[in-house]
């Protein structure tokens, strides 16, 4: 259980999430990719906190990351709902333009 091990695992999760965010067509699946990337950031921040500077400030940063994840999720679902209602679209390729 070292810092390198933790960061390597986080890097692997981040890369998997990046693959999903780039390659997936369904909007909700793209969001899953983004979630995985933030998940990796949580793990990396927790590792850096524990192994390098275990004072409460780092934990507060983790709370901010978790809050950012919540906001991303809520707004993503709202946009997915809007997109589905306006266009009947659930794919990113069906929503490549901004104007209706």
């Amino acid at each position, binding site marked *: 259980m070292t810092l*390198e091990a933790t960061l390597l695992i986080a890097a692997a*999760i981040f*890369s998997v999430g990046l693959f999903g965010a780039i390659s997936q067509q369904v909007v*909700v699946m793209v969001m899953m990719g983004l979630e995985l990337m933030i998940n990796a950031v949580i793990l990396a921040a927790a590792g850096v906190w524990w192994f390098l500077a275990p*004072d*409460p400030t780092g934990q507060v940063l983790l709370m901010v990351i978790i809050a950012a994840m*919540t906001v991303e999720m809520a707004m993503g679902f709202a946009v997915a709902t809007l997109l589905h209602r306006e266009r009947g679209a659930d794919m990113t390729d069906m929503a490549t333009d901004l104007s209706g």
Partner: protein
Amino acid sequence: MLSDIAFWGIGLVAVLGGAAVFYVDSMARATYALALSFVAVGLQVLFLQQNYVGVVTILMMVMEMAIMAVYMVMFMGMNPALMPMSMVHSNKTAIAVAVTTFLALATGILMVDWPTRRGSPPPDVTMALGESLMGPKMLVMAVISPVMVATIVAGVVLAAHRTRYDRFGDDLKQRPADDPQPGGVGR
């Protein structure tokens, strides 16, 4: 030693669970794979002695994935488990970018001469976090709270089908209301 093995094992579950999200056919399975990955990361955060953050991550993500499963069923008209089809684009580019990113990150992680630990963890980590949030780091809470409220409002505005502005106009003065099915007795 035992904790090392457990840590690596849980890490492996987290990575493989994440990979399974984009591999399995069924949307429900993908959602549960993501939940598994999140729970594994939450357990790893618990290993790193951050009890509060770890438990919050696990609880929040399990609930979030339950909601996500509903969304998956709502928005995925067909059932990919019965009718498998490829739902990806630029797959090769994505794999190349992901592998390159991992190699770059791994190189950095292994090459950097990490500093030694500065300071020691507080005896009660959760208590220290609470005191920090309610004391010197109050600004963080003060910023996150309105952001959360704004998220609720924006989420409802975006997702609502018809609001009072659709019915009564932008100044809310239009009478009678513009409804697809007029109500009342026609007076």
